């Protein structure tokens, strides 16, 4: 399949020239095409932020919800129609800041969705405040003396909570990013892909160059099913590992723990209440 099936035609993209988001968009389209996923079977769910505008730039079904709240609707959409490929995609502020509680609990629930986070270590859309992943010392108009609190480590968190797939990619490397996305989307269960994404407008610290010198690719020696080893990798800070860091394919998906597809395989949108059973129930309430 050609990735241009996802093209929107002539639209005005609101991202800054040179932004890492463009590469992510392109890699995602390529990954989807390679996986033969059609726009009609795809639902892009996002929050609010620069990254969160991505669903408007890719032909698909779209649920562009509230800041920080992409994961709950994504979980519900997948549960209501497991035939859909569901991707929840937003920025680091959205997913790790406002949406922190959903992140934790989506990891626990393990719906079969892909969670892509554009991690630019800054709040882009609101013009440059610190994000949860901003590095110590990073100065902004709000953090005037520099960020003074520990950055949030999404990889370590995912491993701690046994998220079933945890990967990190870099927006500066199209091919590898695409490969990682393919693995993530193919993974059966919740998959987190934290993508290091340079923000050329507001983050002058974590540039393309910086990310390049502060990352390395995991090689085959790394066993992503080894949780403690993965944790060790997650704690590396000076050189952050890229690739699939942790994977646990043993966990059941959220959708499969519900009973709603046991007797009825049909989609929800046509279902009507079983009035007969309801009458039985009511009669039984006469006890």
């Amino acid at each position, binding site marked *: 399949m050609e990735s241009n099936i996802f093209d929107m035609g002539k639209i005005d993209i609101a991202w800054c020239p040179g932004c890492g988001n463009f590469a992510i968009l392109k890699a995602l389209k390529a990954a989807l095409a390679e996986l033969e996923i059609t*726009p*009609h*079977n795809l*639902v892009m*769910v996002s929050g*609010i932020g620069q990254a969160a*505008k991505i*669903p*408007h730039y890719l*032909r*698909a*079904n*779209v*649920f*562009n*919800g*509230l800041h920080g*709240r992409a*994961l*709950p*609707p*994504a*979980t*519900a*959409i997948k*549960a*209501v*129609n497991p*035939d*859909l490929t569901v991707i929840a995609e937003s920025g680091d502020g959205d997913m790790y800041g406002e949406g922190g*509680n*959903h992140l*934790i*609990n989506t990891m626990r629930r393990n719906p079969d969705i892909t969670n892509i986070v554009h991690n630019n270590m800054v709040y882009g859309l609101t013009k440059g405040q610190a994000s949860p992943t901003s590095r110590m010392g990073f100065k902004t108009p709000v953090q005037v003396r520099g960020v003074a609190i520990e950055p949030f480590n999404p990889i370590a968190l995912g491993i701690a909570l046994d998220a079933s797939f945890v990967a990190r990619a870099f927006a500066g490397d199209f091919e590898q990013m695409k490969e990682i996305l393919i693995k993530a989307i193919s993974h059966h269960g919740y998959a987190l892909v934290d993508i290091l994404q340079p923000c050329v407008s507001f983050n002058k610290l974590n540039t393309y160059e910086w990310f390049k010198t502060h990352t390395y690719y995991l090689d085959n020696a790394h066993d992503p099913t080894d949780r403690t080893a993965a944790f060790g990798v997650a704690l590396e800070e000076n050189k952050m590992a890229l690739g699939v860091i942790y994977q646990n394919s043993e966990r059941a998906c959220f959708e499969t723990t*519900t*009973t*709603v597809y046991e*007797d*009825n395989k049909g*989609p*929800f*949108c*046509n*279902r*009507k*209440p*079983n*009035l007969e*059973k*309801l*009458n039985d*129930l*009511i*009669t039984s*309430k*006469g*006890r």
Partner: protein
Amino acid sequence: MGNIPRKIKDDVSLVICGSAGKGIQTVETILTQLLKRSGFHVFGTKEYMSRVRGGSNSTEIRVSSTSRPSLLDRINILVPLDKAALKHVQKRISENTLILADKEHFGPVDEKEAQGLIDFPFSQAASDIGGAIYANSIVAGLLAQLFGIDQEEMSLFLDQFFSEKKPEVIENNQKAAAKGYEIAQRIVEAEGIAIDIERHPHIAEDIFINGAEAVGIGAIAGGCNFLSSYPMSPSTGVLVFLSEQAEKFGIISEQAEDEISAVNMMLGAWYAGARAMVTTSGGGFALMEEGISLAGVMESPAVIHLAQRPGPGTGLPTRTAQGDLELALYSGHGDFPRIILAPGRLEEAVYLTRDAFHLAAKFQIPVFILTDQYFVDSYYNIPSLDFQSKNRENDIIETEDDYRRYRITENGISPRGVPGFGKGLVVTDSDEHDEAGHITEDLDMRVAMVDKRKRKLVDMKKAAFPPELVGTDNYDTLLIGWGSTYPVIREAWSLLGREDVAFLHFSQVHPLHPDTSAYLRQAKKRIVIEGNSDAQFASLLRRHTKQEIHQTILKYNGAQFSVEEMTTRLKETIDIKE
């Protein structure tokens, strides 16, 4: 003691009171089932503390020859399970109250309290049978006897009720009930007690549910197949009910990590084709408001069961109130239409909850069902229900290639598609958007979208449920109520016996039915009755009808109005000269 009226006719208020976790529930279930099977009208309501053990909770069971599903202050028969219980209901005890208590178990009671106390030594009897746990069946047996329930009937029911227990336990409970029955016989004879209530055998066939179950049944009838919620009293009953029924009715029931997740899951579920709802209470709902606003801009259907309790803050978690009307009405930032329903009777709760799903789907808006702790925890017998007539319509279209989710239409409603069904793509957005659903900053499009959303109000008003007038058309004074107060006001109104006074009950409080103004206009005096300190519905009526509300009768201590209180306050208020 000679004062105590040992003959009670037609309408008995029985109260069982004791500490939490001490089995009131069991006595209550056995007794009310037996009463109903025997053809009595039965109403039960409870008030309880926000704790799991200890304290004092009480259940009122009203047994009557005609349906009277409302709270009384008066207690005809009181069964206090411990000494603190007596204190707890002290204000409601009069010389007409028959108190059946285990004197030995109580220990010394002061003179005044002891008056009217009839000894009922159930503790000793229970331990004779095999332990304190059997006290419940003894009490149930005693009460069954008082109400003249056939012993055979009782025994049959107990077998059924305890059917999942071990044979020994069943046997002991049978023994215990028989023992209570026997003790009661002695008491009845010694004290000359006689209860005389007409029976209607058809009641045995009635449905017997509480408010939470009514909402749950209505939801199922409305096609609900997705529920995401976070536990919160008094809304949890609906979550529990639908979780129990989930497997049978194909419902995904998910306990969310918080209310924010719950409301956003609900919207995701509707988007994908489900019929979804949340059940919550004040503080939990406050957390959902951003999500309600999201429903507003996305034009997503949404059904919210909001069970009210007294705020602000955590307030009184297990008490009742009607304080969240304005909260629901103005919830969420920005202007967008919504519907608020407030059932007053159980049947209404069933049908309105069902209709909430239909309305939400039709108008693509949030629809609220406003109940309260009193309502969800009260139960009574109602005749059968009918669902055939109003089943889910095809509210979802199969999309075409050029599908635009927010097509601008005359009535403001754009045909709703879902992803994966049809040739179109379904794009929904929390930003202001164009017809295709994509983010826009075109200020004219913005106005077009606001206007489109607002235009729905025209048909919404036409579809509004009219208020129900109780009494003749020829009223001078109009009593106005909404939601759970319906039975109480109705009963108090009928006790007044005044032809110049009518009662108008609203089960839809927003948008108001177009007839509302006319109803109000006819009255010389308008009195609004509600369970909050701000007279919220009175404000709403003023605003909507531009007519004066002359008096309000408010209550906000956490309890429902009783019939007696309502009667007194009506009498006080009706004849006030302005």
